[in-house]
């Protein structure tokens, strides 16, 4: 039997098992905390910093997706200060690559665009970086447009943890960081890719997309299939 902890999130009394994250407990209790790298069914990595919350007694903000609950914790998930932080994080994600919503395959099916809407990000104060990043369309069915990639690494985790192929990984560091297929070879030449398409399904933006679909026809919504696959794998002892 696991230990049950009681805590508050935005003043509400909630409870969860030891080892659960603040994000998981919030989700179970219908408290919405924004996040772009978090996806139920994948291990969390605290990359996007959108789920930052305040914990009473701590001077630092904590990423709800990678912070475990503790007994008597008082968590603030929504405040003016947190909104400001989330707006700043959203702005920087937008400016790091070349996001052009109007001509994106994921226009109106994009979690980043929805987030900007939700947080009322109507413009950017910082300058754009406008990096020259490419598109790899060598795969028969899919393509990756690095202009839209936010480095949430959902593709890397879905490929590794769910499909078990580990075709996707990360190369370089800092602003030069890119997702890559098999040590940087073109996706279409990858001997490990099973063409399952899970990476495309989990991508929150238009970075990964199916070829041959007209702009804005793709539907990228939160899909419930990952936790299901994870449970299925565990039941079969895979």
């Amino acid at each position, binding site marked *: 039997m696991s230990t049950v902890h009681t805590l508050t999130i935005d003043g509400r009394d909630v409870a969860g098992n030891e080892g659960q994250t603040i994000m998981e407990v919030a989700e179970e209790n219908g408290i919405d905390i924004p996040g772009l790298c978090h996806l139920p069914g994948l291990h969390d990595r605290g990359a996007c910093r959108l789920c930052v919350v305040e914990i009473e007694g701590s001077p630092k903000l904590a990423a709800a997706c990678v912070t475990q609950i503790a007994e008597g914790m008082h968590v603030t998930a929504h405040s003016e200060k947190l909104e400001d932080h989330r707006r700043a994080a959203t702005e920087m994600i937008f400016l790091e690559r070349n996001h*052009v*919503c*109007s*001509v994106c395959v994921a226009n109106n099916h*994009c979690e980043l665009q929805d987030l*900007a809407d939700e947080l009322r990000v*109507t413009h950017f104060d910082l*300058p*754009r970086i406008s990096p020259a990043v490419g598109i790899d369309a060598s795969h028969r069915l899919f393509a990756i447009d690095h202009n839209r990639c936010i480095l949430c690494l959902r593709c890397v985790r879905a490929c590794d943890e769910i499909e078990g192929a580990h075709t996707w990984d990360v190369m370089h560091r800092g602003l030069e960081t890119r997702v890559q297929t098999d040590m940087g070879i073109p996706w279409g030449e990858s001997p490990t890719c099973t063409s399952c398409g899970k990476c495309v399904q989990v991508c929150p933006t238009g970075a990964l997309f199916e070829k041959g679909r007209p702009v804005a026809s793709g539907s990228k919504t939160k899909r419930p299939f990952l936790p299901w696959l994870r449970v299925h794998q565990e039941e079969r002892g895979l």
Partner: protein
Amino acid sequence: MSKPRVATVWLDGCSGCHMSLVDLDERLLDIFGRADLVYGPLVDVKEFPEDVDVCLVEGSVSSEDDLERIFKVRERTKVLVAFGDCAVTSNVPGMRNPIGVQPLLECAYIENADINKGIPDRIIPRLLPTSQPINRFVDVDVFLPGCPPHADLIYTLLDDLLAGRTPEVAGARFGR
């Protein structure tokens, strides 16, 4: 008391935001019954006038001419509205930014030209190194994102501004 003076400006954009403005349809009669349209692509006035109360600026700042105009517009306007995604984020015109001006012009006017190959050096204003949203150069009072912003949002915005209210344009977002 004279009517508020409204102007519109078309910088580097496709004119789609102006088309959306025209999509106000009969509401144009309401808006321009309460205000005077003193400058813009829909008005035959050559010089941007003094004492403009509200100016909608469509498009990003891409050329030397755009730059000169946006400073003049700011100087002569009380409430400057970044009108649509190009003005707000640089949007499609900004897609050239990672490429650079010279390779861009060579691609357009030499590599892909069938006749009269050559980069134009007269009449057309010179391009700036990058295309930028207008708030990189001047203070913007109101941002109205959208590609284009829906006519209903434009109406709400102008209605609020003309009535002296702080505009509340819920529903405006990038893209769409």
